[in-house]
């Protein structure tokens, strides 16, 4: 298959799967914004401009076309802040999900492979403790004890997300381990390492990959929550939750400061979920048409 037919096949696929195309479009735009945030901002996001305080978006009466989405209480351009906020929020979510996948998978695989043993029990009890601890309390404790930098936010978010991965991965390793086809592979003469990589490892991907985008989506929300509570990302750094919390005092009169970042979060979450949905059906041959 040459490149051209591959491309036309891909386009056909996208035309057929509308929801996936929409989701993919949103995700790609978000990634693009996150990468090139610095050159996309029309204004310096932290620059105050007392002359244009609390400007509404340009389509509302009194708006200024120079500030497309208006300004906040101290006259900072909302669009520029939004772009930087997307960069921060998406970056943090991506890193926390990646690190929780890494930790969760490692613990889950070890636990599942050694299943009936003391090591499995120890790892699973740790996971249980982690899962049983209320997340908000944990976040408040950690983020008030250490400086709430982006790095510490990533750690807190990772702590909240890895146990789910560990649990899910452990159970799928246990299912794979006792499955007939692993048995059949043994009877075919495959070594333990080969079975672990080629069969069990391979079959874990359909469990992990579709969940990851959806998990990023939920972490985006959690991160915004932390920032909205002002225990997450601290000014002068900007995140989506941060912008929303800036607008908290003006929500009844100047709704756009809070509503627009909220809307952006919603769009990103929908996009990631659409992509995750399609990945799930693609990776599971039983759901394929």
């Amino acid at each position: 298959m040459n490149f051209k037919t591959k491309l036309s096949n891909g386009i056909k696929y996208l035309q057929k799967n509308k929801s996936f195309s929409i989701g993919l479009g949103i995700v790609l735009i978000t990634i693009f914004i996150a990468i090139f945030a610095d050159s996309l901002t029309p204004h310096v996001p932290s620059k105050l401009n007392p002359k244009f305080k609390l400007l509404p978006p340009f389509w509302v009466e009194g708006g200024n076309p120079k500030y497309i989405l208006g300004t906040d209480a101290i006259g900072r351009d909302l669009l520029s802040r939004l772009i930087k906020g997307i960069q921060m929020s998406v970056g943090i979510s991506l890193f926390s999900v990646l690190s929780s996948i890494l930790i969760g998978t490692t613990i889950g695989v070890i636990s599942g492979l050694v299943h009936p043993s003391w090591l499995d029990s120890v790892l699973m009890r740790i996971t249980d403790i982690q899962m049983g601890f209320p997340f908000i309390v944990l976040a408040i404790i950690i983020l008030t004890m250490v400086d709430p930098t982006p790095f510490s936010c990533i750690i807190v978010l990772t702590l909240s997300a890895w146990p789910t991965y560990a649990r899910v991965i452990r159970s799928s390793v246990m299912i794979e381990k006792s499955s007939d086809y692993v048995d059949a592979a043994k009877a075919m003469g495959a070594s333990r390492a080969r079975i672990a990589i080629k069969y069990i490892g391979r079959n874990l991907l359909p469990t992990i990959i579709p969940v990851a985008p959806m998990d990023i989506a939920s972490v985006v929300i959690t991160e915004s929550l932390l920032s909205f509570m002002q225990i997450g990302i601290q000014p002068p750094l900007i995140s989506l939750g941060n912008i929303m919390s800036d607008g908290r005092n003006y929500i009844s009169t100047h709704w756009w400061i809070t509503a627009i970042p909220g809307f952006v979060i919603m769009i990103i979450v929908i996009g990631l979920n659409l992509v995750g949905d399609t990945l799930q059906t693609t990776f599971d041959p039983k759901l394929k048409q």
Partner: protein
Amino acid sequence: MEKKSIKVSEQNNGKDVLLKVKDLKTHFFLPSGQIVKAVDGVTFSLEKGKVLGIIGESGSGKSVTSRSIMRIVEAPGKIINGEILFKGENLLTLPESEMAKIRGRRISLIFQDPTTSFNPYMTIGQQLIEAYRVHEKESENKIKEIIAQVFKLVGISDYEDIVKRYPCEFSAGFRQRIFIAMSMIFTPDLLIADEPTTSLGITIQAEIIEALNDVKERTGTSVIIITHDFGVVSQFSDDIFVMYAGRCVESSPKKELLLNPMHPYTIGLIRSVPLLEARKTKRLKSIPGFPPDMMNLPIGCAFSNRCEFAQDICFEKVPDLVEIRPNRKIACHYPQINYQTNQDTQI
């Protein structure tokens, strides 16, 4: 590859013996301290190109026997005694790395349920290629030629389309056919089919047995077929080996066993086979009682408390497997030498 020094060609009545199992014991050591003697002293041999049918109820140790031959018995289970001579080599003393070379290559195992024995996330082609690459590195095109050959062997002609598909796209019977093809990829000397038709419909069963028969005829592979269905062994086997509670109770050539079963258990089994053409009013006879609790076997013959011919000695002493006629071995204190099955059963 094989070391010639160990290779002793075993002769038995001038015929080539491929597999000889002597006093095999596989026990399961449960965490509670109890021991399940799943296979307890099984002895049989299989000639080259022949088919051996192992028959018995669930839990009689048939599958564990086959897994012991492959040496893939799972954790609390352990082969504690015996010899498995395959082409003169004792498989039980081989190092694991050598054993891995035999699995799938010299001895293949076909599983009971074809709906679960394939990896659902790999296409058929990927799995067959993987089955080949476990043992040998070879280019994909070369392997595809071999795949086309083994598919032809089991009566599948349009392989190009099939290899691109996932297992879930095929019916159970067809998957079992593909699985047979997969296990024949190295044309092994011995094919062990562990209840290959149990999960299939009755018409498909016949097709699968036919496919196995074709494979055997065309390649000269010996087959051990494990089943609880007399219909399967009666169609397709040379010798029959009846297992009960981890032991062999009767072993004999097929025809003699079916016409003149001697062990009360075998008689009971044959009497309980339903027949379409049997006389109307005849009721099927079942064997009274239940298979014994494997953790708690009776002291004497394991079958004693279900046996209609049992005498005092049956409850005290385990009968040995003795050869009462050439090729006919039986483990019973009171073998029913003169029992004849009804002619209208015509198995």
